[in-house]
């Protein structure tokens, strides 16, 4: 009888493998497990089994029955699932078609660079201030130690409104306005638009500067170097070479032009850096005592440094833009890239 039961199991499995429809499976179930099925007829022979083996045989017959039942259910379930899948597959989409909804907007590259720079300087404790773009001659020049008729005014060609009113040529007048209102310590940056009558591939009549000013007791030229080196390494990477060289600005003394190693040629010399291997990146210096005098600070008690940088210049280096006019042309194909 044991052999008969095992054979039943093998035969049924074999037939199930060939069954592909619900009906065929139901036929198999009836054939083996039905009231007139194979299992029933085997169990009829239970009487001829030795009485002591009967419980074991009964148990085995039940096991075979349960196993086969389970197996049939699972084949049926599998068949149902694959039928449903087939139907869903027919509802297929072309998932490679573009999705709906427009592209996200972009910020202007000048905004991006301004935000980045202001962020770095804010982390050094500088807070942001603003000043008027149509400025008085006094703030733009005179209070910054640039008297009328002084040749230093040649350094900054100027758009005039009237004799004493002009479009600010730099963000430095904000320094003066801040110091007039506030006692030291002062640690501010002033981003904004500035204007000079110049227009070509590398000059725009309107461009952006960020001015920095730090005045306190015992601020030194070493602090200026440290702060600006830290700043430039944040903007251009830790490996960037930085050098400070003497220069002249009427409102700082000593003054320093700050250069970085050319990011285009790594210092070997190229068209961008005029073969020098260095790029002028910002102007800086210790605040001139004349400026302190104009705002009523005691230059024996306080010292400070100021710096100014051109946002367009940094954006051009950062993004590889060679024509400054692109910033104000606002061609969609330009704006989309940032």
């Amino acid at each position, binding site marked *: 009888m044991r052999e008969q039961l095992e054979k039943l199991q093998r035969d049924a499995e074999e037939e199930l493998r060939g069954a592909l429809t619900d009906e065929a499976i139901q036929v198999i179930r009836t054939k083996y497990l039905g009231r007139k099925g194979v299992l029933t007829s085997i169990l009829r022979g239970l009487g001829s089994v030795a009485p002591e083996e009967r419980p074991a045989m009964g148990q085995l017959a039940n096991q075979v029955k349960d196993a086969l039942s389970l197996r049939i259910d699972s084949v049926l379930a599998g068949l149902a699932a694959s039928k449903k899948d087939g139907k869903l597959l027919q509802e297929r989409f072309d998932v490679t078609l573009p999705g709906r909804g427009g592209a996200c907007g972009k910020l202007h590259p000048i905004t991006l660079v301004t935000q980045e720079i202001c962020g770095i300087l804010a982390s050094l404790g500088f807070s942001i201030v603003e000043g008027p773009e149509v400025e008085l001659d006094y703030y733009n020049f005179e209070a910054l130690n640039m008297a009328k008729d002084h040749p230093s005014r040649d350094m900054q060609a100027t758009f005039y409104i009237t004799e004493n009113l002009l479009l600010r040529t730099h963000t430095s007048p904000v320094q003066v306005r801040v110091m007039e209102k506030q006692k030291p310590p002062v640690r501010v940056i002033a981003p904004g638009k500035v204007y000079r009558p110049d227009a070509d591939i590398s000059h725009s009549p309107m461009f952006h500067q960020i001015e920095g000013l730090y005045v306190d007791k015992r601020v030194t030229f070493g602090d200026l170097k440290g702060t600006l080196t830290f700043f430039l390494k944040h903007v251009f990477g830790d490996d960037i070479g930085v050098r400070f*060289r003497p220069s002249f600005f009427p409102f700082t003394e000593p003054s320093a032009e700050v250069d970085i190693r050319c990011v285009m040629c790594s210092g070997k010399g190229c068209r961008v850096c005029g073969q020098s291997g260095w790029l002028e990146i910002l102007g800086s210096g210790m605040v001139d005592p004349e400026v302190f005098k104009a705002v009523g600070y005691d230059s024996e008690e306080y010292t400070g440094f100021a710096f100014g940088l051109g946002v367009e210049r940094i954006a051009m280096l950062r993004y590889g833009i060679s024509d400054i006019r692109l910033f104000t042309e606002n*061609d969609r194909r330009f704006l989309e890239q940032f």
Partner: protein
Amino acid sequence: MKVSLRWLRDYVDIDISPIDLADRLTMAGLEVDAVEEYTPAFTGVVTARILSMKPHPGADKLHLLEVSTGEQVLPIVCGARNMKAGDVVALATVGAAIPGGYSIKSSKIRGEASEGMLCSEDELGIGPDASGILILPADTPLGVNLIDVLELRDTVLDIGITPNRADCLSIIGIAREVAVLCGKKLRYPKIAFKESSEDIRSLTSVEIMDPDFCPRYTARMIKGVRILPSPKWMRLRLEAVGLRAINNVVDVTNFVMMELGQPLHAFDFRFLDEGRIVVRRSREGEPFVSLDGKTRNLNAETLMICDGRKPVAIAGIMGGENSEVKEDTDTVLLESAYFNPSTIRRGARFLGMGTDAAFRFERGIDPEGVVRALDRAAQLIADLSGGTVSKGHIDTYPGKVDVSGPITLRMKRVEEILGTEVKAAEAAAILKGLGMNVKKEGRGVLSVIPPTFRVDLWREIDLIEEIARIHGYDRIPVTIPPIPAPGDIHDRKREFESAVRAALNGQGIMEVLNYSFISPQSADALALPESDERRRFVRIANPLTEDQAVMRSTLLYGLLETMRRNVNAGSPDLKLFELGKIFIARGEGEQPREVDKLALLLTGSRYGENWHFQGLATDFYDLKGALENLASCLRLAALRFVPDTTIPYLHPGRAARVLIGDREIGSLGEVHPDVIGRMDLRNRAFVLEIETEPLMGRADTAIRYREYSRFPTMIRDVAFLVPMEVDADRMLSLVRETGEELLETVDVFDVYSGKGIPEGMKSLGLRFTYRSPSRTLTDDETGQVHGRMVKRIVESTGARIRGES
């Protein structure tokens, strides 16, 4: 300024390469912009000897020559006459290039072969002599590049001199810096010459009418000059620094200006009426013909050099045509003066004449170097022209030129400024090297008198800069100042603008940046009425172009121009915004009102050309939605929109004023078709412009959670039939005014007019959502509340009910 190394070496020894020299100068504040090899504009010219010479059989004026370069013998046909067999000459060989773009080819001239050309100085551009070919000394080696034989090669440094360093506008000034930086000795030129017995004071006089403008005027006279081209050594030096050689007198004045930094002028004495000099101001409207042949109309503020009757030069700027040195000049009156820097600057600006002389005078020359330059020029003119210098010089010095007295320099202060200690001995050595008189005044204190040519040194800080510059900025150690605990870290405006940008970016709107100046035509283009404050332009006195002549009084004009450029460039689908200032003029000379604004422009298709939405154009509600979305992102209280038919550049039926609370902040709408036409924009566009300042601080940033109801809603939809001109806002306000507690929201879910709706009417579908915070509403209860609501609307507006559910 261009500096010839050949010339520089006359005053200081240089034993480092030009590149190293350039680097040292740059790092000391004299920025070298370029290091250029200066060579004449020819190649392939070598020395050669004429072996034989006979007449050309076919042409009277030509000769047949055989010349040897040492390696080959070449036949040459030559038209000059000044040579003979045995002369060493300059041969442009086949393939040589000579000035004027000529290249030498192998040729036949009247049947005779010519393998090159013998050149004159003039043809090579190295001198004025065009009368015959260049004959070189007989012992000149053959076959050698002429550039090497004549030592025509030079290196020229182009140095950017900052406005404070007037003393470096001369070769000697640069040499002085080189000497300090390289530890060399500076050699001044030796000045010595013979004088005749005739005293200059018996020949001429100088009278200064305006000592403020001309504190000092000195003069010498040289008689019996012969006007000739200058010698090669002088021409090479002048040309290397970019000056054109003219004649031996004019060249000397230029040479000494470059050498010592003192501009000079030479008059032909015979043209000076009454034989004397008078220095006075010009008269208003006085005409004067300057050396360049141009007639200048003077103002009353220009300083003139005159003779007894008439002006003969614009002081410090340019000489006059009426007294210039000519080929037959015999007697020269030489001027060396100190003019007030502001005077010269004003004059040069007024006349638009930025000459080399004016450039130096306006930056300030050495008031005590005037006579030395006069003597140096007299010496050179006498040497080169064979003239005789009259005895003595005139030095009229009625004015006073400020020069710096002793400056106290505290070494402690040096350290306070630089952040590093510099030893007093080093500081003293640096300052002495720069020509200063340095004395020890006490412990760590020096007393320093700057030389008179350093017109930029007056204060202790000026000396500290000199010390830092020569000591080397790179040797000053880097320190980081203490970073303060952040105070008020919230920068309201910055944060607000960032939030605006993020909200607009999130809606696919791109930021643009337009010029702050626009065309004054913008007011007409936008049809602004005469009374509109946006016509109160801030006008630029010296604009680059008329298109950029006024400061913008609206951001919209720039946005529309940006649209036009993009549409023309094939990008018609645009969503743009700009944040920036506009400017409204106040009183004359007063600073204008500067107002922060936000502007948006939408045009073209809503989502771009795209398979989902074909031909779906942007409309008014995209724009309004963008603003509402922005307000929501910024947590602003509800904006209000009031229809306005009078905004000149907007479609009268599709425009609204925008208010926050009771404050009007701007407007939005469809651009008026006339504006589209006038500005040639081609497509419809929707714009808004609002002031941003009133929005700041209106954000509801104090977030308080409110309990929401856990009971179900009852929804009732009603379609009202109302006249076309009844706006949705009116209906919604009526509903809200009821203050019905159970009404949770009311929304417009449908607007329809057309088929099935009477002419002049529209169907407005409102959805009323009712809910109680504390219980489930019954149908009856809801019905009662809703009935009252609908009745009220019907009574107030005359609306009819088209359908209800």
